[in-house]
């Protein structure tokens, strides 16, 4: 097994050091390959001549439309090396066979049947390599009635459940697709779970296996109560602005602050300490007399808070609970969103600011934890900041070992060099 990472100068190897992954470039599985690579596997992404289609996806660095400047490609292909192979030719297919001969994992997102037609599908390549793990990430799985239906991120999120739960109280507005290729992210994350499970199983059995990932199935089990509420109680949830879809309409939890940005207030105060914090906050801001229900907050403190169980039998408890929510909304409308978020949280009141991606990225917390990672792009003559690790793993750190490859950047190094073993 090859392992470029072993000569890293900056210390510790990632947890997947020593695993070799051959990835056929795709939209679906690109994040899975990135996760494996960032965790230390040697990932070789195989593209067709001219590069994979996703290099045509914008935005582009400095807005120059160029396959070497696609930020989509850059984001999803860190820590990979790249080779170009034309799998439709005998030579290209043979090169892939040689590449896979000493690989641990093949990762692909091809339409079912495509690779079989080229003679390079799982059964073809596993025949004399029984340790091989093969992960397919497809819309509906490799077999079954729907296996060949065309699908995209939008149609998967629509047909798989998420979109039904997302949108607005106003149902004349359409359900909303969550932004950012999340059907691919869901499928890719499951693909990594499957791949690593197969690696651990192989340590015991000595055998690899096929892991079939259905993005449609994955979306279906990523909808929380939208699914288990129907399975258990035949309930149908209804979408509601910025909060959980529920069978009935709940109170709004997303508020527009004084600066026009939004916050989410979440579950209202219940404990005595919550109410004390809330009252202190109102007083500090000078709204004790202006907020019409201060008296109910005083009462809440006197009686030691309220419980959800009391709501159904105790009118006063219900009023107090409502006053807690009103108080949060009252404050939110009067101060900027960030101030609300920090002001609430430092008082122990759970709430969040609805941050745009760039705002989420520039927080002191994120910086302190090293989430902003610099990646060198010699093409731009500078380093660029990328999102970093989803978890901190000190003995075997997550790491972006290199920027995404140029088209065919490592073709010679990998195919003509000594890396490729004859098997």
């Amino acid at each position: 097994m090859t392992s470029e990472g072993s000569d890293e100068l900056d210390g510790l190897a990632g947890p997947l050091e020593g695993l070799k992954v051959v990835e056929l470039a795709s939209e679906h599985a690109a994040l899975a390959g990135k996760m494996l690579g960032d965790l230390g596997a040697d990932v070789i992404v195989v593209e067709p001549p001219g590069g994979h289609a996703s290099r045509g996806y914008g935005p582009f660095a400095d807005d120059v439309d160029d396959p070497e400047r696609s930020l989509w490609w850059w984001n999803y292909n860190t820590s990979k090396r790249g080779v170009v192979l034309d799998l439709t030719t005998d030579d290209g297919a043979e090169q892939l066979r040689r590449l896979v001969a000493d690989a641990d994992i093949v990762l692909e997102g091809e339409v079912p049947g495509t690779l079989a037609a080229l003679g390079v599908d799982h059964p073809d390549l596993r025949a004399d390599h029984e340790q091989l793990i093969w992960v397919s990430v497809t819309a509906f799985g490799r077999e079954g009635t729907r296996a060949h239906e065309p699908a995209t991120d939008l149609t998967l999120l629509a047909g798989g459940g998420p979109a039904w739960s997302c949108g607005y109280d106003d149902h004349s507005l359409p359900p909303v697709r969550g932004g950012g290729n999340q059907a691919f992210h869901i499928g890719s994350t499951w693909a990594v779970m499957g791949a690593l499970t197969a690696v651990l199983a192989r340590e015991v059995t000595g055998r690899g296996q096929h892991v079939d990932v259905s993005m449609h199935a994955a979306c279906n089990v990523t909808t929380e109560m939208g699914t288990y509420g129907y399975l258990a109680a035949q309930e149908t949830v209804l979408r509601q602005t910025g909060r959980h879809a529920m069978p009935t309409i709940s109170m709004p939890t997303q508020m527009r602050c004084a600066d026009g940005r939004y916050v989410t207030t979440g579950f209202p105060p219940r404990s005595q300490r919550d109410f004390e914090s809330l009252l202190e906050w109102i007083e500090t801001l000078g709204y004790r007399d202006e907020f019409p229900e201060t008296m109910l907050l005083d009462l809440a403190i006197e009686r030691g808070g309220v419980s959800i169980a009391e709501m159904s039998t105790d009118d006063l408890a219900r009023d107090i609970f409502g006053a807690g929510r009103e108080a949060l909304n009252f404050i939110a409308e009067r101060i900027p969103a960030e101030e609300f978020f920090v002001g609430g949280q430092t008082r122990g009141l759970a709430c969040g600011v609805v941050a745009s991606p760039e705002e989420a990225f520039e927080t002191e917390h994120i910086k302190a934890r090293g989430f902003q990672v610099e990646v060198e792009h010699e093409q731009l003559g500078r380093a660029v900041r990328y999102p970093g690790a989803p978890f901190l793993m000190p003995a075997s750190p997550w790491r972006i070992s290199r920027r995404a490859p140029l088209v065919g950047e490592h073709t010679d190094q990998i195919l003509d060099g000594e890396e490729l073993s004859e098997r």
Partner: protein
Amino acid sequence: MGALSHIRICDLSGQLAGAGATRYLATVGAQVIRVEDPVKQGTWDIVRGAGPFVDDRRGIEFGSGFNNHNVEKLGITLNLREERGKQLLRSLVAVSDVVTENFAAGVMARMGFSYDELRAIKPDIVYVSNSGFGAWGPHTAFKTWGPIVQAVSGLTFSSGLPGEAPAGWGYSYMDHMGADVMAVAILAGLIHRNRTGEGQWIDMSCTEAGTTLVGPDLLDYTINDRPLRREGEPHSNRSHAPLRVPHGIYPSDGDDNWVAIACRDDDDWHRMAAVIDEPWATDARNDTLAERAAVQDALDARIAEWTRTRDRFAVAESLRAAGVPASAVARPEDRIDHDLGTSEWGLWPTAHHTEMGDVRVDGIPLHFSETDWSIERGGPCLGEHTHQVLSELLGLDDDEIERLAKDGIT
């Protein structure tokens, strides 16, 4: 034998963000021993006993979410306020590969189970913690759950229509994804341990996991200095990167019925236009992507007019038959009871819960050719397997087990 039958997890996690991770590992054979608090009857986990319910029965054994999120796990109770309870947890850690939890940051250390204390018991333990902001940093003490993580990570903002408030996610997307990423952390930790003999503390911040899921928009900001907070954005039913037109969710016949259509390229559009077969669609002026993008609002309005009087399934089917990606926006009933894509997969297995009986639950969106997952047992009742685990795994005799129960330790 499951893929992970050789792995044991001492699981203090709950809700969905933690329980979902160990749920998956249990379905592929890991022995997951979930530890709950007898004093509070396990209600630290807010879905224990919470609806929806399968029938009229209520109480801590009847929450369908808890059942769904904890299939195939063993459940024991330990009072960790008491030294004897802590000692039993130490005994369990000593024979476990992994310890998992998703308490607020610092809780484990306050109970006497910091990583240093855990590894003193089991030197190669893989300890995985999952909290809203991670175990250290300026916001560590902040309280979160799914919707807050989604808000602060950039995901809520990224989902919506122009001129409207953020739509966000209508459920705890980051509890699911947090659980899935946590499962990746556990598996990666085990692979590293098996290769090197070394355990470690893996500290997951769910907010950071969320921000990894908005990558291209972030690079547009860090490289091009272009924020997503700008006029006309987000417009997440459309596709700007790659640019695709038409691309949206359109109204269809009936109340709150919708159909999603995505033309990937000019060919898709020409096929769609042929299905519509009206002059406004087949008009040569809409031939190229640039032309369609220039009139996208008007084109969307025309498409909506066409879809509005038609059945959403019929529209989607006619387009798919022509090779164009399309799907009805599926209600739960559509995709659970009337979808070959889920039924042929076996996606809704029936699990047997000791009190609730047989209940359908989420399956696993993977199939393994040699060591596939299996779901038969529902979530554990409170302390359902305490006797079994203390006896068979920790070797206590019946008298000792009875005394622990009587003394309020289990």
